[in-house]
């Protein structure tokens, strides 16, 4: 044993604050389905807010005439950006469909079946994501 200590009277400690802290909400250890739903909802939410402001910034090009916008469209239709589009759609679907779960369960509906509801919604999301991906790369 590497941590052997001699027998000693047990000291009484004043309680020490020991919270999970700022990043504790994303601690993946021991997390269950609802916990993953919460963490992914938050991550996708943060990502979507960032995208919202990026999108609004890019749309400024429309106020400057056709040259800037049409050049942007050429870039936006390149394969790497299309892959990012699929990631964006994934985020929208996960956040939106999980939002249905949060809205229903958050008002006491299906409060004991939230896990099954999440799984069902994610199956719908996977089907829609597959269809959207095929459309994006069509």
């Amino acid at each position, binding site marked *: 044993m590497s941590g052997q200590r001699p027998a000693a009277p047990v000291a009484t400690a004043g309680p020490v604050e020991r919270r999970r802290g*700022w990043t504790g*909400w994303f601690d993946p250890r021991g997390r269950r389905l609802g916990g993953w739903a919460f963490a992914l909802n*938050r991550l996708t*939410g*943060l990502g*979507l*807010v960032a995208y*919202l*402001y990026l999108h*609004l910034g890019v*749309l*400024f090009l*429309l*106020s400057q*005439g*056709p040259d800037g*916008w*049409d050049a942007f*469209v050429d870039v*936006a*239709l390149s394969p790497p950006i*299309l892959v990012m*589009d699929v990631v964006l*759609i994934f985020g*929208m679907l996960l956040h*939106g469909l999980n*939002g*249905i779960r949060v*809205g229903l369960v*958050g*008002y006491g509906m299906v409060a004991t079946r939230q896990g099954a509801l999440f799984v069902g919604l994610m199956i719908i999301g996977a089907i829609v994501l597959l269809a*959207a991906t095929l*459309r*994006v790369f069509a």
Partner: protein
Amino acid sequence: MSVQPTPTDEPGGGAGAFLGQVISGAALLVLLTLHMIAQHFVLPEGLRDYASVIEWVANPIVVVLELSFLAFVTWHALLGLRAIVFDYGFSPSTERWITRTFVVIGVVTVVYGTWLMYAIVSAA
């Protein structure tokens, strides 16, 4: 027990914000779906070029829908960010300042988006 409970906050605190998230989230399910279909999925090219955008926003219904989308998505996004910030347990006075800050950011966002739409519609 005769001891009266101490409320966890002012009665109903947080209920309005949650209701706001649910209402704006429900609206976004419709408006975002319409936005994605109209701007990306019905077009053979996958994205509107400048001429197509100008033609598209000439329809006043489109303008109303897109501005509604902007308002709801800004509301939902900033209310969500506020909820994340509030999770870190600030004092009531700090929470009020955080709320005011988000309101200002939201108003600026919607004003900017509305101006942008005006500029595009004017070009049309």
